[in-house]
């Protein structure tokens, strides 16, 4: 087994275990911290795929900004751990069963397809994930969506302030 495969399996196991812990944790703050670990594992996968720009943006935007926002809101509300209403056991079981069935169905579907046979993902090579080609594409072909997203941010900011003021 090459080093690349070992890192891939380790990061995948880390991501899946952390994602399960997000669900299992009773305390919402622990859930947020586990979710940050999931994001770090996914950033590791981006580095493995040589998508360096996305790896850094993932850490800065998701693990840095969004999760801090979540932590702020949870600490602001001061929700008690034992105060959280739980769903009935049967509902939980049905939910887990439907999610598991979805996973089973999709995995069976992917296993059946013949178009994906022998397709390899280019690891640790290729330059499209670096800042220079991405920035060039962003400011030439995608400059209009880029500007529109700034308007989206402005409207989201105004919306959040108006909802929060009431």
């Amino acid at each position, binding site marked *: 087994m090459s080093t*690349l495969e070992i890192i*891939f399996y380790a990061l*995948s196991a880390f*991501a*899946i275990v952390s*994602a399960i812990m*997000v*669900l299992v944790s009773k305390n*919402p703050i622990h*859930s947020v911290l586990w*979710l940050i670990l*999931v994001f770090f594992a*996914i950033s590791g996968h*981006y580095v493995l795929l040589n*998508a360096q*720009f*996305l790896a850094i*943006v993932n850490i800065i*935007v*998701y693990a840095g900004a*969004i999760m801090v*926002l*979540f932590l702020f*809101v949870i600490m602001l509300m001061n*929700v008690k751990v034992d105060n959280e*209403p739980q*769903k009935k056991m049967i*509902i939980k079981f049905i*939910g*887990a069963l*439907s*999610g598991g069935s*979805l*996973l089973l169905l*999709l995995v069976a579907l*992917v*296993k059946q397809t013949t178009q*994906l046979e*022998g*397709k*390899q*993902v*280019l690891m640790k*090579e*290729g330059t*499209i994930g670096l800042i220079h080609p*991405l920035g060039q*594409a962003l400011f030439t072909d*995608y400059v209009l*969506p880029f500007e529109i*997203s700034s308007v*989206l*941010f402005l*409207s*989201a*900011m105004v*919306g*959040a302030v108006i*909802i929060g003021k*009431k």
Partner: protein
Amino acid sequence: MPIQYYIFLCLTLFSIGVIGVLTRRNAIIVFMCIELMLNAVNLLLVAFSKMYHGAALQLSPTSTAGIDAQIFVFFIMVVAAAEVSVGLAIIVMMFRNTHSVDINFLNRLKN
């Protein structure tokens, strides 16, 4: 690395997100599970872009095929950040009115 491995990993993460949305009642945790699903999709988009790029590199060594998917992931992150700011504001407003973050409170919207 075969593309199937990445598909299986992302499907697992996505299904964990779906199970979380279905089984938890805390609105913030439901919201976090949606973020988890978004990230699974992002990872799969990057994996597919690298698959496409690897195939295109064999035809011409200077090809930048597959860069669109990474730009797409960037825009998904932008939209997710905007969505989180508004969504958390709505949850805070809900908490101010009811003093709980129970998702079942939103049942009242149907009346």
